[in-house]
């Protein structure tokens, strides 16, 4: 459910908003509530103070000033205030007439400091009360000013309570206001968040639409996304790079298929034309035999092309298994030179095999043989008349390096860079009967790589073409 970026962003934004609003509202509530209660308490405390100072002790009599008792806030008004003066043993000295028969609850050992508490009136109304103990001053008999300082004697307990319904109502409305405001803000933030997230994700939808519009047949298209936000640009760029790579590889594939078709069409034309011409009239058996042997030769050439293609396809699909065995390289080179010796002799090409009998290493014999056969065949094909072919090898560390070179190379250094390309030929044409169709070196390169090695070709002095193979050897 949270897989959608939109849902995640919305949930994040709204969750954050709700959390912040809740914290903010709570703080605000606590602060305002405290201020209101403090204000209430301050006024309660001041009444309590006035009441306390109005209490006089005369001998054993304790009296409260009548004028004070008549104060309007102590009468039955909208927000009545009750008081009750007690001795510490609990006997009531004076109390608010509004209380009637009721008593204000006693504070448990109020101590010297005023104590505030919430009380419940029997009629269901909330009261907030203050309780304090004090020592009443002594009345001055000679009409002198009473001493401000209590002069010792019995402490009295005074409780003053005031109807807190208003306070409670204020606090309730505050809670209600904050809740409503939070809900409204949350609702608005859901709306605004949805719009913002929707607009923010719009470039992604546009890119998706552009990607959807790209046709598999036409990979030249690129994602434009002109107004893409900075965050989407890397995605767009990577996708475009991917498209470029795909296009290049599709083009390579297309070119490869075209080359394969071309490579098979020409010998096919040869077979067809040879047969058709042979059939145009009655001929003697010698002529038919010649035509058939021509066709056979062409078929052999085509077979070699098809074999190379199959081998390449298997290498690409990694369908080839390798079997490591001990290779005596000098011997292997001689084995694969033998079938070429006649062709080399005809053109007076000399092979110099400089590989010593000590060069042995474990590797896959079948595929190394294929590589050597291809390279030697290539060397004989392209060496000049009376030319030279050299083979050399050395082991160093955990690798073996094999070099096969021949004289008479007509290629430029720039052309050398292409010798491992599919269907590349130095003269943009095939030679002879199609055995050199431009697949040999491409196949060699892929075989060497499959064996974990590397291959390079270079043009040395005096037109010497050298192919160097390096294979890692596991000891």
């Amino acid at each position, binding site marked *: 459910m949270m897989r959608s970026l939109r849902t995640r962003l919305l949930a994040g934004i709204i969750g954050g908003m709700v959390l912040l609003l809740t914290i903010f509202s709570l703080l605000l509530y606590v602060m305002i509530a405290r201020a209101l209660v403090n204000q209430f308490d301050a006024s309660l405390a001041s009444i309590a103070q006035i009441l306390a100072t109005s209490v006089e002790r005369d001998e054993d009599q304790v009296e409260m000033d009548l004028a004070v008792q008549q104060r309007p806030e102590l009468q039955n008004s909208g927000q009545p205030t009750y008081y009750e003066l007690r001795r510490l043993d609990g006997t009531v000295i004076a109390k608010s007439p509004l209380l009637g028969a009721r008593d204000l609850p006693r504070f448990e050992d109020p101590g010297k400091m005023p104590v505030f508490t919430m009380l419940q009136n029997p009629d269901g109304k909330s009261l907030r009360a203050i309780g304090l103990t004090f020592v009443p001053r002594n009345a001055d008999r000679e009409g002198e000013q009473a001493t401000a300082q209590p002069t010792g004697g019995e402490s009295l307990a005074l409780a003053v309570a005031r109807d807190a319904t208003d306070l409670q109502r204020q606090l309730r409305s505050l809670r209600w206001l904050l809740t409503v405001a939070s809900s409204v803000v949350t609702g608005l933030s859901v709306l605004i968040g949805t719009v913002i997230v929707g607009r923010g994700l719009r470039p992604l939808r546009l890119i998706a639409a552009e990607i959807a519009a790209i046709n598999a047949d036409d990979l030249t298209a690129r994602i434009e996304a002109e107004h893409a936000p900075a965050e989407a640009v890397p995605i767009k760029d990577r996708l475009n790079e991917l498209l470029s790579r795909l296009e290049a590889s599709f083009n390579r594939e297309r070119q490869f298929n*075209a080359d394969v*078709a*071309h*490579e098979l*069409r*020409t*010998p*096919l*034309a*040869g*077979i*067809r*034309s*040879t047969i*058709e*011409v*042979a059939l*145009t*009239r009655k001929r003697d058996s010698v002529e038919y035999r010649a*035509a058939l042997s*021509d*066709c056979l*030769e*062409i078929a052999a050439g085509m077979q070699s092309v098809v074999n190379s293609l199959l081998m390449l396809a298997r290498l690409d699909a990694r369908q080839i298994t390798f079997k490591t065995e001990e290779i005596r390289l000098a011997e292997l080179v001689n084995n694969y030179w033998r079938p070429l010796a006649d062709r080399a002799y005809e053109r007076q090409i000399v092979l110099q095999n400089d590989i010593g009998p000590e060069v042995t290493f474990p590797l896959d014999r079948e595929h190394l043989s294929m590589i050597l056969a291809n390279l030697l065949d290539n060397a004989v094909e392209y060496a000049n008349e009376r030319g030279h072919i050299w083979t050399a090898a050395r082991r160093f560390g955990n690798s073996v390096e094999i070099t096969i070179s021949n004289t008479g190379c007509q290629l430029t250094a720039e052309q050398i860079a292409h010798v491992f390309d599919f269907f590349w030929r130095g*003269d*943009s*044409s*095939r*030679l*002879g*009967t*199609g055995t050199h169709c431009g697949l040999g070196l491409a196949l060699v390169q892929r075989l060497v790589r499959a064996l974990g090695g590397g291959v390079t070709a270079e043009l040395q002095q005096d037109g010497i073409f050298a192919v160097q193979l390096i294979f890692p050897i596991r000891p």
Partner: protein
Amino acid sequence: MRLLVVEDYRPLRESLAKGLRETGFAVDATGDGKEGLWYAMGNEYDVIILDLMLPGMNGLEILKKVRSEDQKACVLILTAKDTVQDRVAGLDLGADDYLVKPFAFEELLARIRALLRRGYQEKSPCVEIDDLRIDLAAQRVWRGPEEIQLTPREYALLEYLAMRAGQTVSRMDIWEHVYEFNSSASSNVVDVYIGYLRKKIERADKSALIHTSRGRGYMLGAKS
């Protein structure tokens, strides 16, 4: 009619040359681009059959050079390249026809015949001179109602004369269009073949069709 085949794939080149020769064409064939250009520049060919991917020199370059030197030969490109771009490039460089490998030999022959007719501004596949009728497609010849059997070489000579009917054609021209570059025919071979041809097509009771212009050559046509 003399053809040049430039094709580097040996089996195809050889079978083409053989088939075309047996049809009655004089055929020169080479597998190398530069040599092909040298042949094309040095001789008068009626049709050049040109591969595109050649060692030595690319077929399109040969075509460009041949056209820039104002050689009149018709060029038929014979290649494995079959994309529209390849065909357009070849035709735009001045090729007269384009045939993709593999092809039917019959079709190649028909296209060569069409090019020859075009080269000699002859639209109809049948040429009639007086009561001599030549079916260029079937390579058959009639004088009146009677069909005449000719050897390929005789037919080639007659066809060449028929294509230029009414004009005097020199021995050199005949030699150039009917014989191959390295044929070892003797210098009077043209006269000898004209003799054979006369024996087969002329009738004592009808007017002569092959006329000799002394010192200039031969002409096929009813003398006015």
